[in-house]
């Protein structure tokens, strides 16, 4: 560790440096910040098997829900409040949701994979049901009446026959339940629901549209200083020299902290930190270890395969491929590297005091982050408290955790509350990436037009045992760290169709060029793109309507119903050939279908596109979505999610691709990494299939899975050209048109 500031020797004590550095104007109060330190965390159980882990009812009957799953801008906070209020039979206004605080909320796992309602919400529902049942029992026993003769209305246990009641406030208000969560506690009958299944307006929107909301980026601590990180010139370059001679002239500049290849500047104000970060001069070693982007797929194909894994094996596909007179159809698909691209770059604040660290961040995984921070800093997890504050939209494991680690590292080094705000080039350049994904497909079709065999192979980076993504500062500073896990990107390679011989294989690769992580619908999007594109190719090969082809190969009544409703919604006429239209701008429609991971949410979509054959530009005009995620908690929130899935994935499919040279990411802003803009946003028509008596499944991701293939299939319908490489940029479209 070296620290340098004006007239400050590097081996001075840190506090001494901070107090006496010549560039300093600020004076530091010892200890810095205010309350809410780790050691001041209230004693509360966070056990997942305790009702008190999830719920508290105060003396006024107000309910606090402690949710380990957090609202990443999806409306989950409102939905969780609905679930809890419904199961407890209390008005929604009486419910507050605390999210993602390691001292207060149970560890319900990372907020990812469309599991917030399906898993997190259902744990909370069961906790609420346990509480309700216990309170009913308490009254029944106390009053000597049968539990069945009682019910709950507005937080009051009342006899069904009428008469005096006992409020939750009286029964438990302000005290612990001291009750095990009962997995068998009876759940409310969905036919009695008054909140679940209704479009309750989101609780956060009024504050968000009036500037009253506190995002992570708005959060401040007393005595807080600001930091900016200086990234290596090349991804794995070594820092050879640096000096802050120019930075020292900037009022408010505090100093620079260096640890290995990690370099950060501190400022009294945000602007001082920004200017200083630009003024510090650095010399980095040359490093050119990235693959040639123009030959990315050759590179992926040459990477050592650690192991193969059969994800689905039915019958004998190898034998099917040898069937006499069978026609073999094959195709290769690839999917570009994507960045998360949150509109607000990652931001975090941390404070270190008396051996305890508190870190405020917009992390989707405060409990896991706590362990990672402790590992990086050589602390015990118990001495770290992670607190979630909602940030800019998060679509996976982006830079939030890395910014949190920046803040934690710098807070520990300085003993001061430190706010780290990433700049745009940090977010685009240094967040972990959705890895490049390559697929090979083969199918055997009999001379009677029956698909006999299906083989798919995917090439993706290997998964370490534990799910976590390496913290960037730990990597740069050479501190203890975890291996990067790309997420469960093998999911949804298996197909839902009744083809007699199927083999789906993952080739787990030894390396990938960029730190991998999960981005919305990780793997499931790429795998479904390839699956459903290839299904479309097979339908065309046997001369069948692509929707009928799927229906014929489905043995799943729920899936069949979904596709039939989709056909109606989209007014899909059965057809056997491509639509033929004249002129330079041609229209087409494509269909796609998924049963998410083969075990949950069903989505079918139809895309209407226009292709300009002169320029290669694809415009998606409209998406039709049929969606079945079981019981719907909030239909408007669900539609908001589905629309977001469609629009964001249209952007990813048509435009998005990480650019890089041999040293670093070069797409570091919105010009070099464009996303879809208003004029090109498609309309979305949605048919929600509500199944109140079924389990609720996730909806944050599944629609994304079917968007790229629907667009690809629509382009084929319009032009006869197959787009097998995402994104479908005009140059790729033009090249495909020439081949078609």
């Amino acid at each position, binding site marked *: 560790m070296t620290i340098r500031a004006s007239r400050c020797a590097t081996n001075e004590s840190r506090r001494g440096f901070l107090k006496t550095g010549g560039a300093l104007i600020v004076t530091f109060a010892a200890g810095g910040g205010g309350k809410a330190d780790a050691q001041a965390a209230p004693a509360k159980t966070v056990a997942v098997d305790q009702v008190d882990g999830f719920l508290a009812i105060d003396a006024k009957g107000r309910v606090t829900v402690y949710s380990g799953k957090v609202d990443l801008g999806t409306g989950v906070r409102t939905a969780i409040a609905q679930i809890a209020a419904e199961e407890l039979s209390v008005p929604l206004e009486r419910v507050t949701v605390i999210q993602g605080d390691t001292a207060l909320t149970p560890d319900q796992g990372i907020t990812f994979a469309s599991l917030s309602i399906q898993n997190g919400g259902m744990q909370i529902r069961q906790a609420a049901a346990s509480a309700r049942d216990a309170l009913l029992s308490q009254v029944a026993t106390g009053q000597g009446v049968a539990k069945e003769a009682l019910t709950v209305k507005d937080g009051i246990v009342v006899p069904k026959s009428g008469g005096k009641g006992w409020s939750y406030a009286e029964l438990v208000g302000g005290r612990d339940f001291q009750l095990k969560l009962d997995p068998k506690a009876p759940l409310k009958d969905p036919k009695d629901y008054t909140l679940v299944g209704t479009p309750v307006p*989101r609780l956060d929107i009024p504050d968000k549209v009036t500037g009253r909301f506190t995002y992570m980026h708005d959060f401040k601590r007393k005595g807080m200083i600001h930091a900016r990180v200086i990234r290596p010139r090349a991804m794995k370059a070594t820092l050879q020299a640096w000096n802050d001679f120019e930075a020292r002239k900037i009022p408010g500049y505090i100093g620079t902290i260096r640890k290995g290849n990690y370099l950060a500047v501190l400022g009294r104000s945000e602007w001082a930190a920004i200017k200083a970060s630009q003024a510090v001069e650095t010399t980095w070693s040359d490093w050119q270890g990235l693959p040639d982007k123009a030959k990315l797929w050759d590179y992926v194909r040459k990477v050592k395969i650690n192991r193969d894994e059969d994800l689905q094996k039915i019958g004998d596909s190898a034998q099917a491929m040898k069937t006499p007179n069978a026609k073999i159809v094959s195709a290769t698909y690839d999917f570009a590297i994507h960045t998360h691209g949150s509109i607000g770059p990652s931001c975090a604040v941390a404070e270190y005091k008396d051996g305890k660290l508190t870190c405020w961040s917009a992390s989707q995984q405060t409990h896991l982050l706590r362990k990672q921070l402790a590992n990086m800093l050589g602390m015990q997890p118990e001495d770290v408290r992670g607190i979630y504050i909602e940030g800019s939209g998060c679509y996976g494991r982006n830079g939030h955790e890395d910014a949190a680690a920046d803040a934690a590292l710098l807070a520990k080094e300085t003993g001061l509350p430190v706010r780290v705000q990433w700049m745009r080039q940090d977010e685009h350049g240094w967040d972990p990436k959705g890895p490049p994904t390559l697929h090979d497909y083969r199918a055997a079709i009999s001379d009677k037009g029956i698909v006999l065999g299906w083989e798919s192979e995917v090439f993706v980076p290997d998964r370490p045992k534990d799910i976590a993504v390496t913290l960037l500062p730990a990597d740069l500073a050479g501190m203890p760290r975890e291996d990067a896990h790309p997420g469960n990107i093998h999911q949804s390679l298996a197909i839902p169709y009744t083809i007699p011989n199927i083999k789906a294989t993952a080739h787990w690769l030894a390396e990938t060029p960029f730190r991998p992580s999960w981005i919305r619908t990780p793997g499931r999007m790429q795998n479904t793109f390839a699956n459903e594109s290839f299904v479309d190719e097979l339908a065309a090969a046997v001369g069948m309507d692509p929707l009928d082809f799927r229906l014929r190969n489905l043995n799943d009544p729920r899936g069949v119903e979904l596709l039939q409703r989709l056909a109606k919604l989209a007014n899909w006429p059965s057809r056997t050939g491509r639509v033929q239209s004249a002129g330079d701008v041609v229209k087409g429609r494509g269909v796609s279908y998924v049963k998410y991971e083969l075990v949950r949410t069903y989505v079918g979509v139809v895309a209407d596109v226009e292709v300009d054959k002169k320029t290669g530009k694809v415009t998606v005009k409209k998406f039709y979505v049929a969606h079945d995620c079981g019981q719907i908690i909030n239909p408007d929130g669900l539609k908001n999610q589905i629309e977001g899935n469609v629009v964001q994935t249209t952007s990813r499919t048509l435009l998005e691709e990480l650019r890089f040279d041999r040293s670093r990411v070069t797409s570091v802003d919105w010009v070099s990494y464009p996303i879809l803009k208003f004029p090109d946003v498609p309309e979305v028509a949605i048919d929600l299939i509500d199944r109140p008596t079924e389990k609720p499944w996730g909806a944050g991701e599944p629609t994304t899975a079917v968007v790229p293939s629907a667009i690809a299939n629509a382009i084929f319908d319009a032009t006869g050209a197959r787009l097998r490489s995402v994104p479908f940029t005009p140059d790729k479209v033009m090249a495909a048109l020439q081949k078609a």
Partner: protein
Amino acid sequence: MKLAFNLNGRPASVSTDDPQMPLLYALRDDLGLHGPLFGCGLGQCGSCTVHLDGKAVRSCSVPVSAAAGKKVVTLEGLGTPARPHPLQQAFIDEQAVQCGYCINGMIMQAAALLQTNRHPTEQQIRAALAENLCRCGTHLRIVRAVKRAGDAMA
């Protein structure tokens, strides 16, 4: 150096040693506002949009000195949760928010549009918001909200 301007109808001032500091940092860090947000610092995304003498500007790319003596209006100045501006009400009515980080810019840009065109068509709204980026994909609701607000203000 002290710079004075009118902020949301009231006099305000900031002391700065750098007149080139973007207005955004004065509003957020010195004046404690939460409406305008840092998105790119490059004028590419719109999340920092405020009104300067009635015009929508990117406060990340306007020096604070340019605000001296002028009227600055931020999202907070348009309306409050108790008395929202018609656009804010329309965004609530249409539930036109996901994470909401871009929404400051959407509302401020749309407010500038509605000052000159009370009844924009959907196409005009899309064109007016073309340089405001949203990553969550809330665009369709935002367009509906702006249309609704225009109707409400008529």
